[in-house]
């Protein structure tokens, strides 16, 4: 955990063979990750500004753990996860990934040809179980496609593997000749998970995997993910907006606000004593599923600022009830306030939020 770099400088040169990390380091280390989208205007599409969707994010993911990435819409959690998958190219920063072979590579700068073999190791589970499966393909083809791409040309062999995968996610292997429309939302999400697991991945990025599901189905899918993780030694980057879901599944949680990481801590420590006022406000905003507990104290006023034009100093200061003059002038750095507990607040460690 000590290798999280709180103060980010300009990203270093491409280091695909960083000797210091060759020894067993974290599975994934994100350093100073940035992704800016240009704002263009006029006939010539002149760039007039940038949406700083991800603005200097640092975190590590240890092998076998679940890191929850949580925040409200527009905080950059999805953009950050897409950068890690290289579904989009980051503007800056490093994404150091330790491959199965033990080599540390920087995904941020890797050319497509070298990226391709790593795609099997890093897979994704999508939010929308309706949009993420091809409706014209049977389960055999939907789940088997990553196998085909990765060189399993024999159809019989693929069918055997798909049957195994379907069993793994709690579906009957006979279903493989059916089309996605025959399945409910929960079953489709299981199919999506089977597909993600087809290539024996090590790191699975799950972007809001249960938010489109009903409460009763959500619990089934969360249980499945926990079970699969234990069985297959998977590492999860779990992106979601629902605090109670993220809390349930994560070992550690990273909280994002306007493109920055504001707090990173082990799940229990984060909920026991949040060290950033935004995290505390987020927790208070969740309506308690108990009429005897009255939620609604300390409701956060105002709105999330635009990542194209963030406030000065600490991005959270216009909405923060602890804000002082210093917060407006000076941007706080992410610093370690307790072992493994990082916060981007001037008053972290001094005050109770």
């Amino acid at each position, binding site marked *: 955990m000590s290798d999280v770099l709180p103060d980010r400088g300009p990203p270093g040169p491409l280091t695909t063979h960083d000797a210091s990390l060759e020894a067993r380091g974290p599975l994934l280390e994100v350093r100073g990750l940035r992704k800016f989208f240009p704002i263009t205007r006029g006939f010539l599409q002149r760039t007039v500004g940038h949406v700083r969707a991800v603005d200097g994010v640092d975190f590590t993911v240890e092998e076998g753990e679940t890191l929850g990435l949580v925040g409200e819409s527009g905080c950059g959690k999805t953009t950050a996860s897409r950068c890690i998958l290289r579904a989009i190219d980051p503007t800056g920063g490093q994404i150091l990934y330790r491959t199965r072979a033990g080599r540390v590579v920087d995904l941020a700068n890797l050319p497509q040809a070298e990226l391709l073999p790593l795609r099997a190791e890093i897979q994704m589970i999508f939010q929308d179980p309706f949009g993420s499966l091809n409706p014209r393909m049977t389960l055999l083809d939907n789940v088997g496609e990553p196998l085909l791409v990765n060189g399993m040309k024999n159809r019989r062999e693929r069918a055997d593997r798909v049957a195994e995968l379907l069993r793994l996610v709690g579906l009957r292997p006979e279903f493989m000749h059916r089309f996605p429309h025959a399945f409910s*939302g929960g079953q489709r999400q299981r199919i999506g998970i089977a597909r993600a697991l087809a290539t024996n991945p090590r790191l699975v990025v799950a972007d809001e995997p249960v938010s489109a599901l009903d409460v009763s189905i959500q619990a089934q899918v969360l249980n499945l993910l926990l079970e699969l993780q234990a069985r297959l030694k998977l590492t999860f980057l779990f992106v979601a907006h629902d605090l109670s879901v993220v809390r349930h599944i994560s070992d550690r949680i990273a909280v994002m606000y306007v493109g920055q990481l504001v707090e990173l801590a082990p799940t229990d420590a984060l909920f026991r004593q949040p060290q950033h006022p935004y995290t505390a406000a987020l927790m208070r905003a969740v309506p308690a599923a108990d009429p005897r507990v009255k939620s609604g104290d300390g*409701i956060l006023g105002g709105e999330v600022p635009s990542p194209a034009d963030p406030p000065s100093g600490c991005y959270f200061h216009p909405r923060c009830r602890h804000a002082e003059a210093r917060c407006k002038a000076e941007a706080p750095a992410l610093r370690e306030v307790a072992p493994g507990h990082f916060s981007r607040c001037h008053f972290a460690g001094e005050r109770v939020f």
Partner: protein
Amino acid sequence: MTAIDPLLSVRDLRVSFALDEGLVRAVDGTSFDVLSGQVLGVVGESGCGKSVTMRAILQLVERPGRITHGAIRFRRDDGIVDLAQLEPRGAAMREIRGGEIALIPQEPMAAFSPVHTVGEQIIEAILLHSHRWQAGRALSRREARDITVGLFRDVGISMPEQRVDAYSWQLSGGLRQRAMIAMALSCKPRLLIADEPTTAIDVTTQAQVLALLRDLQARYDTAIIFITHDLGVIAQMASYVVVMYLGRVMEEGPVDDIFHAPKHPYTQALLRSIPSLHGKTRVALPVISGALPHPFNRPTGCPFHPRCPDAMDRCSAAVPKPMPVAANQLASCFLHHDEAEP
């Protein structure tokens, strides 16, 4: 159920959709009451018929859907009217819809027209129902605009004079939902139907909108039917709760009893399956086994019996009636029926 006359009384409502593949019974014998000034929470998973029930109340069920049975009795100044019998496009229904019963939809982006300012749309509604503000004479445009600005101020929109002239796409999600609430209140409704009003917005904005709705409810004493799948929102907003599953009411009761003494196996299972902010992490959650049945394959008898841990032989044979299980609390489950009774 109570001695007081309800504002709205839904009795054995059935709505079905005749599709080429078969008949979908979206609402299959739903009954509940809404009292004046009460916040009634309706909770259920997708396909439970909660939204279709609300559309039926407003006579907005689209073809091939049809109200096939039941009564929706609504108390007006001049007596009780059965909304199920009214012509959907008739004058009486148009007077009630938007005037006496207003709707806050889930997605305000889709509910506002993008080519008119939000102010114009609210002014139009006020002018259409202007006698609810001023008996005897029609309101002028100027007066309607002033009312709109006042409503914007009431729902916490800053700079209301300017925001009235904004288009919906110029507003943030939270402001848009506030404008929608202003629109719903614009005709002083007696009953407000809020259909998942905070599902599409972020949790900190949700907290603001919920606080606003609580505040407005206390100030105007409007009855609200609050529909959501989020048990936390229900616990914080409703005083009385109706739990629906596959078009039927499984259980209903005061919010405290529903959360602390649920009597129906479905309610119990639903409450157990949500991860809380205090429970043990990274352990298996109790689940409701199986999946929601396909709409064309409704189970016989109690719709929950194929997934119910307490299912008995009779559950597949007959539909259990709602039985009183505590003061003001009813559960439709054979566990609470006498053996002899069918």
